[in-house]
């Protein structure tokens, strides 16, 4: 394939072409508000891609026909169109674009369209929206609450990320990709989580090398958010159809910053901050009576002694009460001339957690280059090397007392856990099994990644005039990562000493290569005197992944040794996977005078992950938008009105391995043997496919000072891959089959308003409201429960006619019917709302804030169960429930037991249908102040006085991230916590979590 492509490009280069004779037009472009010259403004001939950009003085010059119209555009400014006629000088003043209608949105694999002509609801997040307020450490964190239709959840509070992003509801029930496809500058990047064996070390899971319970970060964490110029989110199949079989969960297109022609700009930025726990959960007091009644009377003497000598300690605050340090440093240099632009950014993000010995560091260096080789050929190169280093500590589910998040709920305040003068950690009570301070200080859970993102693209104009153009594009990307993870539980830990082979270490190497190449052609034609613009694009795409994961796991280590190769018992393993996808596409776009904009396209894809590798699956799409205000004279307040409708299809591929019926190896008594795995492969497996119809209306009022985008969608997913769960006593537990359909329906409203817009104060608000409802419309397998830890605590039910994210559990509503579960609500919120605002005042001050509210969603919580069993929940001693030990209201008031006991036995729903406290899933809501900041821009005159011309600008500020939270959630630290990471279903399980974190930062940014 590669050779063929090279030949193709070469062939095209020898094809010659001609330009029409035209006159020369020149002029300057200025900012209307400040009157200063604007470098880097795009000047193009309407309907073509012919054009230039303004130089440092805002001047431009190009040749154009007399019939041509020049379009002046610049990001953040409303574009202007000027007819050339017999003018030879055109001077233009651009006005700031408050409605963002002019920004260019990528509409296909090789084409783009103005937002005002877009037929889909595409969320665009600019650099200012992304990081303008505060500095979340990962890109997904920076997107939280900023767009309609996205449910973004932080899985935990350890630094370094770990997020679950669901666009427009549920797009798979677990067999295909649950996370959107991320494409950075044309590079398809890998956002997987890679295991390191931690859940084997603490026995949260047994056996396999990969587990979501390792609680690792998804690898989007490697991308430096500071490099991002803008993010476009294609939420559903109608917008993402041209991406074919990988787009079922949506596509996130990230564009990084580029240099501009003009003076070289140097920016230095520094954030310094801290993080603290938002809340604590334990702290119940202990006395002799409590020990006698409910725990071990034998420990009364120990309790009395601890209280007497002042060693009675709240261990939760001891472990989670630290202050995390945040230090982000970045230095960027960008600039260029008419031929070449460059952007270089080096950054260090360094953050420690609220638990000692946890932290995240990311070292990133990026170079983006563009170069015009000639008038007809330009190339671009994006290179980004990243090293991430993450210490993620020991939280989450556990079956061996190892995790401090699991042992702290049980740890009594009267035990002594501090190390002695020689550094020896005392044992915790045998019933708890481990000293959380010893784990915090001595156990290792480290994951490092070295990663290279490399993109290359070339565009050749085969011909280009004001009537028609033909462009050939080549685009390729490489994402290579090399991970190295270390797990170590020293052999002299309390929990290890009781093992048959004390000490655990695992060394995991992960090498993952993703590549993509695309070759496409774009033909444009201006018909009907330039009123009808036609764009035809077509191309071929190939992408591939190969992953090699090797590990050595050792049990039984000499004291002080962390190398698993030195272990008494060691297990090496190698896991390989690879796949290749091929596709081709063709798309036709038509624009009639910006009044009616229509497009249609189709993509064909095949993949080695499908049962039939040679079969092409087709993904058609079509869309139409009508700018009513351009067709009809709408007087009054309405300044813009667009109706739009789009339809498209996408698919999700089966996971690697779904095809194979596997024979595992085993051994007994020194003899090797074969035994089949309990899951069967399916060689007839097909991709999951989705269709989506999206329609909406966009309007602007009062000269677009108020804008609104209202979208409804109906996204149907077919042939969902489901485990056909067989009767397990047959020795086969399941096989994957295409067996279910579901539908997601939802509403998204995005509003924007300039409440005040004058010289003194600018106040802009952006309310966003959205919800999604899912329902399974076909299920050809028996209904089943999935996720969680059994029906006692709540599980997800897959059943026709119901939502797959509905959470059910004990008790049964009909004891005779083993599948008649009590319903505890839905993991998807009833609705989500966020409110962003930005106020600029006193010329140089800017205040911004983002509130995010999630209404009525259900969390499977086991965290409180642990704290109740341990006797430490903050309200454990209270008798406010007035219940007895069976969870009933007692006849005799003397039988009332503490809440911590009563909760362990109250099942089901109360009289109002609200889940009882205790083991039941919890229905909850939250309001979080995701971001808040105040910035001050030092006036230019002050800078000139102090530094002359050396410093162009200084911006200082203070910001907070999740600094305020309201929630009625009582089942744990935070309702966002999730032990199972980004699982499609079953991710909202709160167990062994640590406190949610608030981050406060001070910012300094200097432009030279």
């Amino acid at each position, binding site marked *: 394939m590669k050779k063929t492509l090279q030949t193709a490009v070469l062939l095209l280069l020898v094809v010659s072409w001609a330009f029409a004779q035209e006159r020369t037009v020149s002029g300057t472009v200025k900012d209307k508000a400040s009157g200063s010259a604007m470098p880097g403004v795009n000047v193009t001939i309407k309907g073509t891609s012919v054009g230039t950009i303004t130089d440092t003085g805002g001047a431009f010059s190009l040749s154009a026909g007399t019939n041509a119209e020049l379009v002046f555009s610049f990001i953040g400014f409303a574009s202007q169109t000027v007819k050339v006629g017999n003018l030879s000088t055109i001077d233009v003043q651009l006005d700031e674009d408050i409605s963002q209608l002019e920004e260019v949105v990528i509409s296909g694999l090789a084409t783009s369209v103005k937002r005002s002509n877009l037929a889909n609801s595409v969320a665009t997040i600019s650099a200012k929206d992304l990081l303008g307020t505060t500095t979340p450490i990962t890109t997904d964190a920076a997107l939280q609450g900023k767009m309609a239709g996205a449910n973004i959840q932080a899985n935990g509070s350890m630094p370094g990320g770990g997020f679950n992003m669901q666009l427009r509801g549920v797009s798979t029930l677990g067999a295909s990709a649950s996370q959107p496809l991320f494409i950075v500058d044309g590079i398809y990047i890998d956002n997987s989580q890679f295991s390191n064996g931690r859940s084997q070390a603490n026995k949260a899971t047994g056996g396999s090398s990969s587990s979501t319970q390792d609680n690792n970060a998804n690898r989007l964490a490697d991308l430096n958010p500071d490099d991002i110029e803008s993010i476009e989110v294609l939420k559903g199949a109608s917008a993402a159809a041209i991406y074919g079989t990988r787009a079922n969960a949506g596509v996130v297109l990230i564009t990084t910053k580029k240099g501009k022609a003009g003076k070289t700009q140097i920016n230095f930025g520094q954030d310094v901050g801290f993080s603290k726990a938002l809340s604590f959960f334990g702290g119940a007091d202990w006395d002799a009576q409590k020990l006698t009644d409910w725990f071990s009377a034998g420990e009364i003497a120990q309790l009395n002694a601890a209280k007497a000598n002042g060693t009675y300690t709240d261990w939760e605050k001891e472990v989670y009460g630290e202050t995390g340090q945040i230090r982000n440093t970045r230095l960027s240099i960008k600039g260029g001339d008419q031929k070449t632009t460059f952007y270089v950014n080096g950054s260090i993000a360094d953050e420690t957690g609220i638990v000692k010995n946890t932290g995240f560091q990311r070292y990133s260096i990026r170079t983006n280059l563009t170069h015009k080789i000639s008038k007809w050929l330009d190339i671009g190169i994006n290179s980004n090397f990243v090293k991430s280093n993450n210490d993620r500590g020991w939280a989450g589910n556990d079956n061996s007392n190892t995790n401090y998040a699991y042992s702290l709920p049980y740890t009594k305040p009267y035990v002594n856990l501090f190390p002695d003068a020689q550094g020896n950690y005392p044992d915790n009570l045998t019933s708890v099994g481990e000293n959380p301070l010893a784990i915090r200080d001595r156990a290792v859970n480290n994951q490092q990644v070295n990663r290279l993102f490399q993109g290359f693209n070339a565009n050749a104009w085969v011909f280009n005039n004001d009537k028609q153009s033909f462009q050939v594009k080549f685009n390729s990307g490489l994402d290579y990562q090399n991970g190295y993870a270390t797990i170590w539980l020293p052999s002299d830990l309390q929990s290890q000493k009781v093992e048959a082979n004390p000490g655990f270490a695992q060394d995991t190497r992960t090498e993952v290569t993703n590549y993509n190449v695309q070759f496409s052609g774009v033909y444009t034609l201006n018909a009907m005197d330039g009123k009808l613009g036609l764009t035809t694009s077509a191309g071929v795409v190939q992408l591939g992944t190969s992953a090699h994961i090797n590990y050595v796991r050792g049990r039984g280590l000499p004291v002080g040794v962390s190398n698993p190769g030195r272990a008494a018992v060691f297990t090496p393993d190698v896991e390989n996977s690879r796949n290749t996808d091929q596709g081709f596409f063709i798309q036709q776009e038509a624009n009639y005078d910006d009044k009616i904009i229509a497009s249609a396209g189709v993509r064909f894809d095949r993949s*080695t992950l499908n049962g039939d590798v040679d079969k092409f699956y087709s993904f058609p799409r079509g869309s139409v938008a009508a700018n009513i205000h351009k067709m009809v004279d709408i007087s009054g307040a309405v300044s813009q009105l667009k109706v739009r409708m789009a339809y498209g299809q996408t698919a999700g591929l089966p996971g690697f*391995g779904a095809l194979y019926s596997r024979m595992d190896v085993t051994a007994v008594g020194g003899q090797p043997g074969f035994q089949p795995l309990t899951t069967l492969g399916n060689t007839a497996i097909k991709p999951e496919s989705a269709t989506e119809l999206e329609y909406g209306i966009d309007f602007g009022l009062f000269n677009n000072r108020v804008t609104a985008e209202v979208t409804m969608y109906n996204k149907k997913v077919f042939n969902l891959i489901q485990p056909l769960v067989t*009767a397990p006593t047959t020795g*086969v537990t399941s096989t994957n089959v295409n067996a279910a359909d579901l539908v997601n329906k939802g509403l998204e409203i995005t509003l924007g308003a300039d409440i005040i817009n004058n010289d003194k104060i600018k106040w802009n608000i952006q309310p966003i409201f959205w919800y999604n409802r899912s329902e399974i419309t076909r299920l050809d397998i028996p209904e089943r429960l999935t996720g969680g830890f*059994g029906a006692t605590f709540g599980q997800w039910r897959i059943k026709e006619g119901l939502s797959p994210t509905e959470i059910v559990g*004990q008790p049964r509503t009909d004891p005779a019917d083993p*599948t008649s579960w009590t319903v505890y609500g839905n993991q998807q919120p009833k609705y989500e709302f966020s409110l962003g605002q930005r106020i600029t005042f006193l010329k140089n001050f800017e205040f911004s804030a983002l509130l995010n509210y999630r209404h009525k969603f259900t969390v499977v919580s086991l965290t409180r169960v642990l704290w109740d069993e341990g006797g430490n929940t903050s309200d454990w001693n209270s008798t406010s429930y007035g219940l007895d030990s069976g969870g009933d209201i007692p006849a005799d008031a003397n039988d009332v037991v503490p809440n911590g006991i009563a909760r362990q036995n109250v099942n089901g729903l109360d009289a109002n249908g609200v889940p009882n406290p205790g083991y039941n899933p919890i229905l909850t809501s939250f309001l979080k102040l995701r971001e808040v900041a105040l910035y001050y821009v030092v006036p230019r005159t002050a800078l000139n006085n102090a530094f002359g011309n050396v410093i162009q600008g200084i911006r200082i500020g203070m910001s907070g991230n999740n600094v305020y939270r309201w929630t009625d959630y009582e089942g744990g630290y935070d309702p966002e916590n999730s032990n199972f990471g980004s699982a499609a279903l079953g991710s909202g399980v709160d167990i062994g979590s640590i406190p949610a974190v608030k981050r406060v930062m001070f910012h300094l940014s200097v432009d030279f």
Partner: protein
Amino acid sequence: MKNIAIKITAVLMVLIVNACSLEPVLDPNFASVNAVTKDASKSQLNALAVGQISLARNGLATYTLVVGTIGKELFNFNSTESRWMTELNGLRPIDNSAFYNTATTAFGSPVRQANIILASVDNTASVTDQEKNAYRGLANTFKGLASLYMLNAQYQNGIRLDVTDPFKPSKPATYDESLAGIAGFLDAGATQLDGAGAAFPFKMPTGFVGYDTPANFKKINRAIALRVAIYQKNWTKAATLLPQTFFSETGNLKAGPVHTFNPSAPDFGNPLINTGSSIIVALEEVMNAAEPGDTRVTTKVTDVTKLTPPLSPLTYSSGVTYQSKYRTNIYTAATTPFSIIRNEELVLIAAEIAAQQNNAVDAQKYINIVRTAAGLPNYAGGTGQAALIDAILKERLYSLFYEGHRWVDMRRYDKLSQIVLPTVTPAMKVLTQLERPVAEVNWDKANP
């Protein structure tokens, strides 16, 4: 010219699409099941046979702990999982989707392995008929054993006797039909072993020393069949089977085949050893009721209050509070083997057959073999059938402690209500059987 450029590009794209083909990706990680089910080679069949013996350990740990907990012999003081103590002791509703249902479901794998071997043997010409019978006899023996464990957990729910096609399993049979079906697997296996020649075509793992020829391995098959026969209360058949086993009045009571363990992968360590988070204790009620000087107590449990230095009794307080000073001491190392069936059980079965056939003299003789070995004086209780059966059940409690028998024994004599409950509030219960696992229920609901 312009049209030519576009045409060239279009032709190139068509060429690229046509030139690229996708090769299917073969599984880079595992061997394939299909490769062994047709024209299997001898070495593949040998690997399947060893796999069968390895898989016989599947689920046994959970099973033994579940049966021991429900039968109130032992408790799993599991500091990260309170359902061992609460749900399995009737303090909270039993859950047919919880982890402990592997006490039923895990035995599906050895049954499937046996079915794969039986099908592979019928579908190959690589081995002789005698060798085929050896594979079949081994497969049917372990199929019978796994099915029996499954039935013990499910009891009156019964089990599926034909799961050859996992997508068309038979409906669960009644308890009596299930027992008869299991006896059928074992009897077929015994006949096949008779026709299997003098030696197995594969090397038997070390746990089967002394049982590594078809003739000797058949003694294990018959011992398991004997267990089935006494569950069926078919004392005549039991009396016929007893001499076909490795039963020995004078032999070592520990004699018998064992499952071995080795923590080095792909083998695995004994899953029943006590760990930091899972300590198996004997109920004080059981151990305190033992006769003084019973060496079965002192060898199987450790009184932690008598260690030097002494420890305080082990305490559990998640969901229910219980204390025991007896830590089990049977499975102490990752390599400690697990007995499949022992001579001690056969001796006590001999006693039971004698008692059931009203031969009080022989019954006492066999009881006393066990008592003597335990350092106890001869049996001096009543000689009526009821008294002898009670005496045998008591000896079985201590002789076969933590080997998965107490609950089943009391149930087959309809004496579950006589199991001594620990004094805790709220009061524990003895479940009669586990529920049918949720996936079993759902399958039959969807495939009536």
